[in-house]
């Protein structure tokens, strides 16, 4: 809702907001800029902002030296796999809770949420041990399973709040018009449910991509995703600012773009419907 304000006031708002916005964004901007500098210019004193010799050499070096593509691929498989699996498990559950609620639906929902509150470090060793026993340590399969489980409560919740908004009356109307059960689901419910499912997938991808407890503790060289790839730069290698920046930029770019599309759904997904 637009409110009437004087142009001067609006200009002032704009100025302050942009200044603060750019300040908050600055670390990301600086990382992106530094990734295009040479190592010498990256630590130039005073720092160079825009006027340096732009180069993409760092990106090549990072790829050659640390096999970036393998980590990227691991991230894609782990985030994508856990999301896909999670949605497959969660859609029927959320669906039935939204459309055939029982007395226990609320308790089940809250209980699911409570599993999310379990601090990961409290169960670190058991999971570690189970992973060794089952041969899952440092495998993508293992991480797909764990990340699916930690995000499942959020996926169920988010889908539930979306499904809940689908009017049930419309089903009865369709039935009156002679729709079969299959037609009902395919032509009436699915089109209404797809946007909710899509935003849930988006949020789950973001959370899985950035997860940095299990991915750091349960992987080594083989199945490590980008979180682990970046953590390996915490050794003295991190002192090469330009290369660190290039690696960082490559690690965050895909999810930064996805994230911007999903900012509205973020609130719903992360507050479990408590703030809409």
């Amino acid at each position, binding site marked *: 809702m637009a409110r009437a304000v004087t142009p001067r006031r609006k200009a002032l708002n704009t100025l302050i907001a942009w200044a603060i916005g750019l300040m908050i964004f600055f670390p990301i901007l600086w990382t992106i800029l530094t990734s295009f500098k040479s190592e010498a210019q990256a630590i130039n004193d*005073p*720092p160079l902002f825009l006027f340096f010799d732009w180069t993409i050499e760092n990106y090549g070096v990072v790829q050659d030296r640390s096999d970036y593509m393998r980590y990227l691929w691991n991230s894609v498989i782990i985030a994508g796999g856990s999301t896909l699996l999670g949605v497959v498990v969660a859609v029927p559950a959320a669906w039935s809770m939204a459309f055939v609620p029982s007395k226990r639906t609320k308790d089940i929902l809250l209980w699911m949420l409570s599993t999310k509150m379990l601090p990961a*470090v409290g169960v670190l060793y058991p999971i570690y041990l189970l992973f060794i026993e089952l041969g899952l340590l440092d495998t993508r399969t293992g991480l797909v399973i764990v990340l699916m489980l930690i995000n499942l409560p959020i996926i169920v919740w988010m889908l539930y709040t979306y499904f809940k908004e689908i009017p049930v009356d419309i089903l009865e109307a369709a039935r009156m018009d002679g729709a079969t059960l299959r037609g009902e689901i395919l032509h009436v419910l699915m089109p209404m449910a797809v946007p909710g499912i899509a935003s849930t997938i988006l949020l789950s991808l973001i959370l899985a991509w*950035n997860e940095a407890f299990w991915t*750091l503790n349960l992987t080594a060289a083989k199945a490590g995703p980008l979180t682990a790839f970046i953590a390996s730069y915490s050794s003295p290698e991190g*002192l090469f600012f330009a290369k660190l920046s290039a690696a960082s930029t490559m690690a965050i770019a895909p999810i930064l773009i996805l994230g*911007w599309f999903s900012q509205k759904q973020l*609130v719903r997904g992360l507050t479990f*419907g408590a703030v809409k």
Partner: protein
Amino acid sequence: MATRHSRSAARIMMAPAVILLLGWMLVPLTMTLWFSFRKFLPLRGGDLGWAGFENYVRFVSSSSFWPSVQATLMIVGGVLVVTVILGVLLALLLDQPMWGQGMVRVLVIAPFFVMPTVSALVWKNMFMDPVNGVLAHLWKFFGATPVEWLSQASLQSIILIVSWQWLPFATLILLTAVQSLDREQLEAAEMDGAPSLKRFWFIILPHLSRAITVVILIQTIFLLSIFAEIFVTTQGSFGTKTLTYLIFQRVLESQNVGLGSAGGIYAIILANIVALFLMRIVGRSLDA
């Protein structure tokens, strides 16, 4: 329309999710509980038998326990204060009419999508490095001596990094709440001559109280278990060893599983106390 048939169908549809989560909760939890009562040193003899409550006593009486509780409270408390206060101010600002509102919002939200290892490393090296960091240049520009952030002001540095990551979350949720404010009430108050500070205190803040509570509770749960930010910056030195990090060290670094598991049980209890409050609020919104 809920016939018995659709009820049992519903139960079958729910089963996979419920069974998976039940297993995910019970199996590791039972194991942690079991280990916490054992003397269990995988690299030095393995399971050496029943230990009673010894691990629990030793965990809290070790010299690193209280400092870790203190560090945890400082970090969680510090980040909460910073993000809630700045979040409220930012939400109010972003709600004002301006040019390029959507773009500013994108800029403000961006840090939330940066993976923790990246933000920790970027801050550590490119901003907090005492020689080449941006902050060091800034300090020198104003004629001050650059600070060795992660050793001299380690807790503040971690709070800064984590606040930067979580400010977008707080802002976004508070902005959603601000936008549902009753404009007419606010305008009426303005016409009655209520100064803006009073309007903020008596109308806006009470309206935001629920969103603020939700922000505090959800962030607390996530902040109690921050890991990567410490793992790649200080590794728990300089007084930044949180409870989570201490347990991690006991379990995986010194491989004292019994002791670490007892610590894990403490952490679980702590998290559950916070969770209880959150669940109440969420539960209420389910009824509405």
